[in-house]
């Protein structure tokens, strides 16, 4: 890289000032709405009060954040592995595809919040039912995107592979799977945000820790500042996990990222 640090920073500023300005505007509106008394403080706490509480109760929130993050990541990883496996099976076997698709769709359209209590009954109040709900939420987009990716490979490329005689395993490892990665990553990015929702839904239904529990408690106590603080932390968890995946994609698929143009991390990190 020939760019000097000063240039690099100017580039970062150029790319980030718009979203930063929008965020600042939202905070300003929030502040005005609460400061002028347009909305009662017990309904919407002021940003100052919310962020003040975030700072004060940081250690309390941090513990619960870690619980939710742990459930989310575990659910996401299981959904990712399972989703890719099922997608591969579906792409290579028409029988498996036609058998599994209706069940998958059925599992997807069932409202997770409606079956979450069942998992509590079956698995108790620990982290397991939360992970299961997160898996259920995150699984579907991974399967769909991986199937699409694996099927999007050029037929000509596959014919070429047949004339090269590498066999199905080499064809999968060297051609089909790498070609599916951009689709897979798109699915994983949707999945990770859904996994956060899944974990929180699981906590709503029955738990004594995690950010879902924090929000439920705050709601019960009419503690709106804590409710807002919980919401902010959940969003931050989702955004950070999303950005990590975006970064992983950029590192693993530079050939694709360079053609796709501005993604969030390229926006922030390109120098």
């Amino acid at each position, binding site marked *: 890289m020939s760019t000097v640090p000063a240039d690099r920073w100017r580039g970062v500023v150029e790319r980030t000032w718009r979203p930063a300005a929008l965020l600042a505007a939202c905070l300003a509106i929030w502040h005005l709405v609460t400061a002028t008394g347009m909305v009662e403080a017990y309904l919407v706490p002021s940003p100052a009060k919310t962020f003040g509480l975030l700072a004060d109760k940081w250690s309390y929130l941090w513990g619960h954040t870690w619980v939710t993050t742990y459930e989310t990541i575990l659910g996401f990883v299981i959904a990712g592995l399972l989703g890719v496996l099922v997608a591969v099976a579906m792409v290579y076997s028409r029988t498996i595809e036609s058998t599994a698709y209706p069940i998958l769709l059925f599992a997807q359209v069932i409202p997770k919040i409606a079956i979450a209590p069942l998992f509590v009954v079956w698995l108790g109040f620990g982290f397991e039912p939360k992970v299961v709900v997160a898996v259920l939420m995150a699984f579907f987009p991974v399967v769909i995107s991986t199937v699409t990716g694996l099927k999007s490979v050029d037929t*000509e490329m596959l014919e070429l592979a047949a004339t090269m005689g*590498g066999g199905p395993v080499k064809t999968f490892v060297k051609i089909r799977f790498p070609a599916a990665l951009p689709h897979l990553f798109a699915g994983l990015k949707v999945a990770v945000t859904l996994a956060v929702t899944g974990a929180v839904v699981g906590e709503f239904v029955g738990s004594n820790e995690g950010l879902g529990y924090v929000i439920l408690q705050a709601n019960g106590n009419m503690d709106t500042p804590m409710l807002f603080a919980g919401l902010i932390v959940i969003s931050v968890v989702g955004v950070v996990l999303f950005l990590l995946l975006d970064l992983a994609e950029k590192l693993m698929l530079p*050939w694709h990222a360079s053609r796709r143009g501005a993604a969030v991390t390229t926006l922030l990190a390109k120098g």
Partner: protein
Amino acid sequence: MSVTLGTATSAVEISDVSVRFQSKRAEVTAVERVSLDVAPGEFVSIVGPSGCGKSTLLKLVSGLLKPSSGSVTLLGEPVRGPRHDIGFVFQRAALLEWRSARRNILLQAEMRGMNAAEAGRRADELIEMTGLSGFENALPHELSGGMQQRVALCRALLHQPRVLLMDEPFGALDALTREQMNVELHRVWRETGTTVLLVTHSIAESVYLANRVIVLTRRPAVVHEVIDVDLPAERDYSATMARPEFASATARIRDLLGAVTGQD
């Protein structure tokens, strides 16, 4: 090979081959009773109206497609499934986007489990021969269409196949690049002695490159006529274009194709 049968003198032997497939309503005959012999080291062009089944012939030879009747023999062995002793070049370069030019060429070696050092040397030779030097590490999207097709050609030649099948390889290129590629392919063919079967839409290309041009009819494709190209082996592009033999061959093919497509 020690066993030499009567047919082993041909590199490719297509005898009485028909291809039929079931479309939504009716049975469609793509190729009807086509017979064709290609001698080792020969360059044969196949021309015909769009969608007549020219590409189907190449798929039959490579074993990617099975004939409904008749038989195909490649290098003395009947074709029963995908064959590995050929090189294939498609109209689209079909390169792996995440691999550099050189690594795309080496895919052939990896899939075949060839000796890596030897394959690397061979790849470098081909890169040199096709004028790709300096672009070894470029990704496909950084290369022009002509360059991408050169990579595809190198990949098809890496394992030194005795038969090279080309399905409209230069169809997507601009006229000037196409001429350059014609000249290069001619040189590569002369240097390697590979048997080439080329499907093309360009009459000039078919004559400039080939020893023989096979003219097919509309679907179902039958061999309409075989034109022997009476040109010297050493073919300078402009000089060849100016020769009366070139003019008469292209005029004849144009006539045939006009007659073939002009019906009803």
